């Protein structure tokens, strides 16, 4: 039997759930020869494999959560975080999302809702993802995530917890949220078999990663930028899951070195960078998405995106919960839209941005609801703004030709401004 025939006969679903699959892939990853320019990719890949191997082996309790929960919270409690939203992006990247979206739709999950959640629920219904021991959602930013995670907890018949996050960002709110997290930790400790000393280690790893991320962001301000937006918005998964782990710190150290090497060798992410864009929200993850076309073929590089902006202070192991609470409340996407708009304008100046693109992901109330304020702030500052409607997961929900026309027309506007001596901010 040849290899192709053998592979086609494999029971993929069974192998996906088998921790040995990830062990074998991890061993095979040693054959992946990387240099200083791409060692970070291997670090992220291997970290992901290790997480999946441990989760499917049920080495530690698996905690399903959403992307706005700081991963340090789960790591400090001794759990293994699993983010169905990230899994949905991976599935979409493999071109497999429609089947899971369809499954969620059959289970009364409306097509009007976010496809990250629909696809995540489809994965749960197919029982492909590592089964959770408990589900933890944060109520801030995305209410859809809370509802979807509640449905997942019900499906798996596991406990469901919600962190209620106050709207303001003052000292009183930080104290309130920190107390809530400490109480939750006390409640979960017996279930998660955690050790209090973990907190110090998690804080140390998180701070190390943060330190490299600050340096990475400094390099991204250079012209030409050494990191593409397409890659940056792929590795947001590391930010959402690996902060607080040695693997996360290793990834950011290697990434920093890769970008530094690119700068020193004058090998930018995109060879000919005509325009520098600021990308708001996530990107489409399915094959044939428009961002790679925009960067590689049109030379419009996403110099920065708001996800990687470091807006939090290093974690103090002695005030661990307060640090995490301050970080959650300090997220510029939480609270009044004006706060997010102010951050956008700061990023425009810092990264010398020519134009801002907000990716209006279908069904995303929390990001799309801020568009009028963002548009108005950009218009007031004389920064071209494009609201690009599409879908991060479901390719069928966005016409590629329509998206390219909008993006190309936006670049033509930027071109016109440059030729008209509008100058750069």
């Amino acid at each position: 039997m040849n290899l192709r025939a053998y592979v086609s006969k494999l029971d993929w679903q069974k192998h996906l759930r088998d921790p040995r699959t990830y062990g074998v892939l991890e061993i095979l990853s040693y054959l992946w020869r990387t240099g200083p320019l791409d060692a970070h990719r291997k670090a992220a890949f291997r970290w992901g494999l290790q997480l999946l191997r441990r989760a499917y082996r049920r080495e530690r309790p698996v905690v399903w959560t959403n992307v706005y929960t700081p991963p340090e919270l789960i790591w400090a409690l001794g759990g293994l975080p699993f983010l169905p939203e990230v899994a949905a992006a991976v599935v979409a990247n493999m071109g497999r999302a429609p089947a899971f979206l369809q499954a969620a739709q059959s289970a009364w999950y409306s097509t009007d809702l976010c496809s990250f959640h629909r696809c995540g629920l489809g994965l749960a219904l197919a029982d492909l993802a590592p089964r959770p021991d408990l589900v933890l959602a944060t109520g801030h930013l995305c209410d859809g995530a809370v509802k979807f995670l509640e449905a997942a907890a019900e499906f798996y018949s596991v406990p469901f917890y919600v962190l209620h996050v106050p709207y303001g960002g003052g000292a009183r709110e930080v104290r309130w949220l920190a107390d809530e997290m400490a109480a939750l930790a006390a409640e979960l400790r017996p279930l998660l078999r955690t050790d209090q000393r973990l907190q110090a280690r998690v804080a140390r790893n998180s701070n190390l990663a943060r330190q490299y991320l600050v340096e990475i962001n400094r390099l991204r301000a250079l012209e030409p930028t050494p990191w593409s937006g397409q890659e940056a918005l792929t590795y947001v998964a590391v930010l959402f899951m690996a902060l607080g782990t040695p693997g996360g710190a290793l990834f950011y150290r290697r990434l920093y070195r890769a970008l530094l090497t690119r700068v020193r060798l004058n090998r930018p992410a995109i060879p000919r960078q005509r325009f520098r864009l600021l990308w708001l929200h996530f990107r489409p993850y399915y094959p044939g998405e428009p961002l790679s076309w925009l960067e590689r073929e049109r030379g419009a590089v996403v110099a920065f995106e708001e996800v990687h902006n470091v807006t939090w202070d290093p974690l103090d192991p002695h005030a661990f919960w307060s640090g995490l609470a301050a970080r959650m409340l300090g997220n510029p996407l939480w609270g009044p839209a004006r706060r997010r708009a102010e951050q956008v304008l700061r990023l425009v100046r810092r990264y010398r941005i020519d134009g801002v693109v907000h990716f209006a992901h279908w069904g995303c109330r929390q990001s799309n609801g801020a568009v009028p304020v963002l548009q108005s702030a950009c218009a007031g500052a004389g920064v071209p703004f494009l609201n690009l409607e599409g879908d991060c997961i479901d390719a069928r929900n966005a016409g590629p030709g329509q998206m390219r026309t909008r993006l190309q027309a936006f670049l033509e506007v930027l071109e016109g401004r440059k030729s008209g001596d509008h100058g750069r901010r």
Partner: protein
Amino acid sequence: MITVGVDIGSVTTKAVVLVDGEWRGASLLATGADNRGSAEAALVRALAEAGVKREEVAVIVATGYGRINAPFAHRQVTEITCHGKGCHALLPQTRTIVDVGGQDSKVIRVDDRGRVVDFVMNDKCAAGTGRFLEVMARALETDLAGMAALARRAGTSVPISSTCTVFAESEVVSYVAQGRPKEEIIRGLHEAIVDRLEAMLGRVGVEPAVAMTGGVALNRAIVEELSRRLGMEVHVPPHPQLVGAFGAALIACTATA
């Protein structure tokens, strides 16, 4: 210098030939299922009308949603930029352009040199476009040319969804079943289109003068309703369907082959 602009739209393909910036010939034909074939045919016809040989053409710019299907073009430019350039050349006082084509509608703001400053396009649904009117004309057993006259005859209108073409069609069928006069239904359809255009205009802001391009600009009832809502005249250039191709040909004048 001879330049050509070819606009491959969802419903029609247009070509305009310029000789030293002067309009010499044009063509307009149905796009059909073969984008490349219709682009080639439009080019050949426009050249024949202009009395120009193909080898004499210096630069060809393709635009429209099918612009990537014109292998003979030296450059592809979006219809947004082309409509801005073309409309500004025909009506230089224009600062806001409403273009309603077969499958999409857009509002474009231009500066005093015809450069696009801002734009918005309709979302995925064809509601508010030429296709919307076509579907409704079929449902009402009338033709596109006669719709404007019927709408102008109506004393009142029925409310119709401006969100989705298919939903709107089912509403039309319901009104027909209720025995509502065809004129009132058609006027309601026109108002639904203008509702969408008005919302899009609000997003980019209205700066006078306002002009309308695209095939739907030939419908006087739409233009009049839009003028009434805006409280200002909406100008329509000659041959509004050809404005994109004309703009492409103008851009070709400044491009190199």
